[in-house]
């Protein structure tokens, strides 16, 4: 039987097992929306701005590992979702974004709500398609999901002109697909893996540095087993938190610009660095010329282009992190050799001395609410087991430093692009995927206002998010840089005329709380967590002058940290 393009679209998504579409209707996608209306397998979540559709699909993908799906109309719908796409691209999140397009006969005519969506999104997608013929629609959708979820994941855009959604053709959804020009590596090179093992076992001061690839590649278990077997210290990147249990004694904290003293010092002084699923981002390495000056480097990554991009490595291994780690574990278990115990003991002694610096200390006796204290209390109140999304800035760093993630996919933030406005819509995606779990959005009064309209979406779908707003009345991270590097000239980082967030939350039909004293923090958090049927917006009025420490200033070496 022949189906219309719109019917085919819906059938494809059903056959692909899509649970949720995050979207916003408009002229070019009306045929599709009409078909969505007629079925109930796929649930459509109506956001209030297309940027949020991107972030919500992204949050869903990060929490579940399944591809997120967004659907927007042509023109402004497509341009609005670009931030969501770029965010997912920078963090390698599997996502398929469908954009409506003007009818093929009008493409190039500057038609109403026309924009070259394929052109605009090209630099921030893994791949994109314009479907010009309904006969190609099903195969293109299959390809989109295949490309988004395999190899190094990423967002794929499918642009569908309106007339294509009305044309008819026979429907069949391909079970499998192969693309001759796209063949992700299935396993690491065994010879290289052996070389890596030899190097690891010869180390006197080894260091494991793992990133978001561990989370995306579902390799936390193997990483944990390998690290424990070897007894090596391990650090995680911002994106990799939860890839190794943060409460484990071998974990030395996050590294990088706001990493711990012990993590950065161990990086700087190690003799063998084992980088797994990480990409040597500038926020991690600091000044490349001063990076790990004495280390031989092993780098495991699924993307060959990540290897030796920023830092030249000695033993590159291209492959999926889980299979490479499994092979390493197997080889190590069969190997009679073990790491040099005496050297390791001395190395740990040194690391423990760095640890004793207690670089994350803060004034616990302060009469003002300290942001660190809020996160620590949140950790305690949620038993360390909540899904935590964040926006971008100081609050993001405090959350990364003070919430100890023991499991992967619990920490959801925009690391690569650094997108303010990400936290709330991302949390919606997480909560929909896990309706019974506690989902907290840690944010600031700057970031939250970038997608605040989504409080309305949360109301419509009854999403009981817990918003922790660390309100210091400043764009905190901007203020911190201005304090350190611009002699305290706080150019436009102070926000006057903030809304009354309590009333605002109430206006959206949610619950608002304002917390102004340290003594009220725990009680408020406990009360909020007890409320299971509504969103609670907690506005914590915090110390406005608090900074994030330690800090590696841009351009400095990892060992050149500003400490409290």
């Amino acid at each position: 039987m022949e189906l219309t393009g719109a019917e085919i679209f819906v059938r494809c998504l059903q056959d692909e097992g899509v649970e949720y579409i995050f979207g916003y209707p408009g002229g070019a996608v009306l045929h599709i929306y009409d078909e969505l209306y007629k079925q109930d397998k796929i649930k459509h979540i109506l956001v209030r701005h297309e940027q949020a559709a991107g972030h919500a699909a992204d949050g869903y993908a990060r929490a579940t590992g399944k591809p997120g799906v967004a659907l927007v109309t042509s023109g402004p719908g497509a341009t609005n979702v670009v931030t969501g796409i770029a965010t997912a691209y920078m963090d390698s999140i599997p996502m398929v974004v469908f954009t409506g397009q003007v009818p093929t006969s009008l493409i190039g005519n500057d038609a109403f709500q026309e924009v070259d969506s394929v052109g605009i999104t090209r630099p921030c997608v893994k791949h994109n398609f314009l479907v010009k013929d309904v006969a190609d629609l099903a195969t293109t959708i299959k390809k989109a999901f295949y490309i988004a979820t395999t190899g190094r994941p990423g967002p794929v855009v499918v642009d569908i002109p309106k007339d294509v959604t009305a044309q008819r053709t026979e429907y069949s959804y391909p079970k499998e697909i192969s693309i001759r020009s796209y063949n992700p590596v299935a396993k690491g090179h065994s010879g290289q893996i052996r070389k890596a093992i030899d190097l690891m076992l010869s180390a006197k001061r080894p260091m494991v540095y793992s990133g978001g690839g561990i989370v995306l590649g579902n390799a936390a278990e193997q990483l944990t087993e390998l690290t424990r077997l070897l007894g090596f210290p391990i650090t995680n990147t911002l994106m990799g938190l939860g890839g190794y249990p943060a409460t484990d004694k071998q974990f030395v904290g996050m590294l990088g610009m706001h990493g711990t003293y012990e993590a950065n010092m161990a990086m700087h002084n190690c003799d063998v660095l084992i980088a797994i699923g990480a990409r040597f981002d500038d926020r991690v390495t600091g000044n490349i010329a001063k990076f790990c000056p004495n280390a031989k480097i092993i780098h495991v990554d699924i993307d060959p282009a990540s290897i030796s991009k920023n830092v030249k490595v000695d033993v590159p291994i291209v492959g999926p992190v889980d299979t490479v780690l499994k092979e390493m574990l197997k080889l190590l278990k069969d190997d009679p050799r073990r790491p040099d115990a005496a050297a390791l003991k001395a190395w740990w002694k040194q690391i423990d001395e760095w640890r004793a610096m207690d670089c994350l200390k803060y004034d616990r006796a302060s009469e003002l609410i300290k942001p660190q204290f809020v996160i620590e209390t949140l950790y305690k109140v949620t038993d360390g087991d909540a899904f935590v999304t964040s926006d971008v800035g100081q609050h993001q760093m405090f959350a990364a430093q003070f919430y100890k993630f023991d499991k992967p996919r619990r920490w959801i933030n925009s690391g690569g692009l650094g997108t303010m406005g990400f936290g709330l819509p991302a949390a919606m995606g997480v909560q929909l995927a896990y309706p019974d779990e506690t989902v907290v959005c840690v944010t600031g009064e700057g970031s939250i206002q970038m997608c605040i309209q989504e409080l309305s979406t949360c109301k419509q779908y009854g999403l009981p998010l817990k918003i922790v707003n660390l309100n210091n009345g400043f764009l905190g991270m901007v203020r911190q840089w201005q304090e350190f590097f611009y002699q305290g000239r706080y150019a436009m980082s102070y926000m006057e005329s903030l809304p009354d967030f309590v009333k605002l939350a109430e206006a959206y039909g949610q619950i608002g709380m304002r917390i102004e004293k340290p003594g009220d923090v725990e009680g408020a958090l406990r009360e909020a967590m007890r409320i299971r049927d509504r969103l609670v917006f907690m506005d914590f009025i915090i110390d406005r002058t608090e900074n994030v420490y330690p800090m590696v200033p841009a351009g400095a070496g990892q060992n050149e940290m500003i400490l409290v």
Partner: protein
Amino acid sequence: MRHIISILMENEAGALSRVAGLFSARGYNIESLTVAPTEDPSLSRMTLVTTGTDEIIEQITKQLNKLVDVVKLMDMTDGPHIEREMMLVKVSTVGAGREEIKRLSDIFRGRIIDVTDSTYTIELTGTSSKLDAFLEALDKAVIVEVLRSGVIGIARGEKALRI
């Protein structure tokens, strides 16, 4: 160093802009770029000339390989290869100068493919440096128009870029 990179890619709309976009987005140089379909109409062959350190060239080839439309590529400069570029030069020439231009063209194994009372159009094929040398040898004042095709390259011997 100068590299000639040949790319087999899907002959699809937008494939060229993916390559061009990659170079501008990552700040790589393109000296020349030519593209045309191959004997297999589903494939295009692109040849681009770029310069950079070994590290940059490694990144360029890796990033190109990452493009979903790129089927296969080869850095011609890695081994013995032949490079060719075609040039058309229109020169304005009258009187005694005409014989001189004709001789110069013969020396460079060029062909005069169009003649008027006041112009010659010369076709010349060779390596880029040979074409440069010909232009150097010409009096700048007589050059009316210069067209260069961009470089194409092929490996010597049995080595071939094909799927």
